[in-house]
């Protein structure tokens, strides 16, 4: 036995991933998306998960992601089987009379919202059942339909109560997810409740209402709400939006901290400390990265245009006619537009991954400690779960996380 000692010290979770490694992998993946007409996204997702999992180390042993790209691709194809009839329905509705179409669209929208819950749960099932630690696989039980119904009716209640029911919904869904999670033959537990969320949530709620009211109160007399709006009234609104964003991040950090810290696994307990300032810092970095990459793209674009259509800029002035002559070849213009758009999209998603995705994972992983880890040594493996092919709906609905 390596871990002979019986006295238990809390074990911090380590995260060894570097932003540079993830960035290189993503750039390579984005390039490969072009020749594969977008299909490489399934491989990229698999690579990304291997990165996150393999760099997350608990007591000397990293997690292992055992999923494959092909499973994701198959799942996506299966999800299409759900979507094609929905598409037909959508099409049929769009040809009906206006009222029927609106009612129909509303119905399809509600159905999609319901299915999103199902998709989220199935996707989590897929990820957990492909997560290995110390040779033992995680898994998720429960029913995705059950989860979808819970989420759906809770979210209706949240809407009806203008958001006030949110802590109840959040705690309930966290509990359902974790009480149905397994590590080998041992079931996870969840000791959290809405009470832990109530204070930060209603505090944040109150502050948001006050800030919003003040922002609107200041902006309205300045004409920001008139039509057409007067730009002079925008600064108070912007400041209010920024402050609300900060309050939101504060609440998010509290929810992550409280809920993750309520996760139990037999005798082992997870404690996570996510600080609000850490989240704010990651978002600030994201903003800076985004602005920086777009400035870079803009400069690059001008340089390319200068080379391609140099004469249009002759004499320090931009001549639209000459420029348009250069753009004559339809195909070249179109390619330029598409390429430019893809670059902008890629820069955005790169920044989201590098700063928000990696940032959140790092904050949670590095803020996590586990007590009672020794109690897990008796966990035994369960039978293989091969029932799941991919995340299907989650991919099609674009709700995938990590």
């Amino acid at each position: 036995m390596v871990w002979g000692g019986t006295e238990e010290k809390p074990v911090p979770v380590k995260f060894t991933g570097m932003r540079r490694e993830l960035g290189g992998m993503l750039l390579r993946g984005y390039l490969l998306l072009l020749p594969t007409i977008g299909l490489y996204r399934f491989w990229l997702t698999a690579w990304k998960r291997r990165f996150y999992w393999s760099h997350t180390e608990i007591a000397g042993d990293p997690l292992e992601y055992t999923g494959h790209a092909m499973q994701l691709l198959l799942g996506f194809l299966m999800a299409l089987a759900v979507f094609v009839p929905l598409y037909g329905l959508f099409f049929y509705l769009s040809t009906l009379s206006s009222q029927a179409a609106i009612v129909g669209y509303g119905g399809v929208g509600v159905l999609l919202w319901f299915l999103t819950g199902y998709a989220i749960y199935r996707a989590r099932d897929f990820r957990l059942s492909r997560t290995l630690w110390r040779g033992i696989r995680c898994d998720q039980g429960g029913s995705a339909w059950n989860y979808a119904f819970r989420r759906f009716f809770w979210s209706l209640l949240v809407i009806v109560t203008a958001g006030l029911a949110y802590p109840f919904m959040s705690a309930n869904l966290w509990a359902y997810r974790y009480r149905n999670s397994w590590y080998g033959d041992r079931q996870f537990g969840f000791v959290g409740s809405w009470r832990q969320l109530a204070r930060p949530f209603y505090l944040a709620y109150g502050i948001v209402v006050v800030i919003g009211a003040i922002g609107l109160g200041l902006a309205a007399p300045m004409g920001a709400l008139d039509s057409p709006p007067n730009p002079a009234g925008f600064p108070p609104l912007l400041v209010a939006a920024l402050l609300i964003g900060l309050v939101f991040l504060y609440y998010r950090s509290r929810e992550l901290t409280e809920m993750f810290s309520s996760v139990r696994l037999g005798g082992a307990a997870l404690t996570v400390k996510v600080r609000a300032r850490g989240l704010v810092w990651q978002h600030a970095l994201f903003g800076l990265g985004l602005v920086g990459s777009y400035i870079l793209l803009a400069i690059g674009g001008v340089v390319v245009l200068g080379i391609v259509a140099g004469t249009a800029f002759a004499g320090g002035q931009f001549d639209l006619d000459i420029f348009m002559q250069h753009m004559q070849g339809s195909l070249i213009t179109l390619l330029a537009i598409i390429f430019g758009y893809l670059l902008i999209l890629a820069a955005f998603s790169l920044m989201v991954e590098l700063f928000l995705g990696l940032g959140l994972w790092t904050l949670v992983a590095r803020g996590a400690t586990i007590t009672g880890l020794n109690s897990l040594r008796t966990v035994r493996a369960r039978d293989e779960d091969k029932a799941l092919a991919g995340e299907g709906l989650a991919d099609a609905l674009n709700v995938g996380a990590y």
Partner: protein
Amino acid sequence: MAIAARFHDGLVAEVEAVELEYQAMGAVGTLVIRRSGDGAELGRWPANTLYALHGRRDELRLGANGQPAGARVVVEGQHDVARVLATLPVLTEKRRQEAGRQVRLAVTATVALAAVIAAYLYGVPLLASRIVGMVPAAWEASLGETVAGQMEASLGESGGLQLCDANPDSLANRAIARFGAEALAGSGSPFDLDIRVVRSDIPNAFALPGGQVFFFSSLLEQAQTQDEFAGVLAHEIGHVAYRHGMEQLISTAGTGALIGFILGDMTGLSVAAGLGATMIDARFSRDAERQADAFAAQVAQRLDFNPAGLADLINRVGADDEFARALALLNTHPLTEDRKAALEILSQQRPTGLEPPFTAAEWRAIRSMCGATPAAEPRTKTK
């Protein structure tokens, strides 16, 4: 010398510090796993069952077929990893095979998707007209009513689409209806044409599903000759005859699904989805325009008007600017000059001695039905 490693047996969540030994007995070597310290043997994995899993840099994770799925031997450190890989070339070989397999899968999937896209681009115009043939005419007609209702509502600020001449038995309306019936005759269309000349500042004319054709007064005012008016009208009737409106609805739905598949976003809300769908639909739409132009040219084989006038009128209300030319691939209409050239070829051998579409009195009545002065003021090209 033995190599230090960590070992999970895949049955219990335990980790053992082990020492690896390679025994080359017979053709197939064996990886022997011994617990550090007491040297107890924990496993013997034949070399040919071994495979490497993805791990961090300088970390080698080994699994083996025939062992529990989670059983792992983990070697850490650049030096030790290199030693294991050198001893077990089968690992590198299997990794290479696996990479090759993944590449083949990706290539196959890509080729399949490319085939689907190609089939879509070339198949939908054919397929859409087949599917349209199965759509009941009554349904299409009611759909046209819906669209017309929505359009009236959106243009409703100026009191909807007001007919220029509400009397269906007026000289102008009767002449237009007669022209429509003659143009549509023989096309086998299940629809009754309903041509409405309505007041609007927008120079436009279009056909809705189900046989409704709208001709805006502003376009009529800019028509200088019968040829131009009859040409545009025959073109729109061509859309009705070919049921292009319905066809377009069907192909738009299909395009949305396809683009969603490529981008992995079935909700189709992103800009990329919009741009891609626009490009493909614009292509179908340009084909439809050419078809309608050809229909107008066929009508001109039976009635005496020059279908190329249609291009003249379109050119007058909105000549292709540099921008339109530059973005021709995104445009729903072919470039006017291309259309004119094509129409002139189509109208080269028209039979002589045909009846003009409208008598002089009828044409005067049409010109003045929206209250404009019948005298055609000379207009120069504005652009």
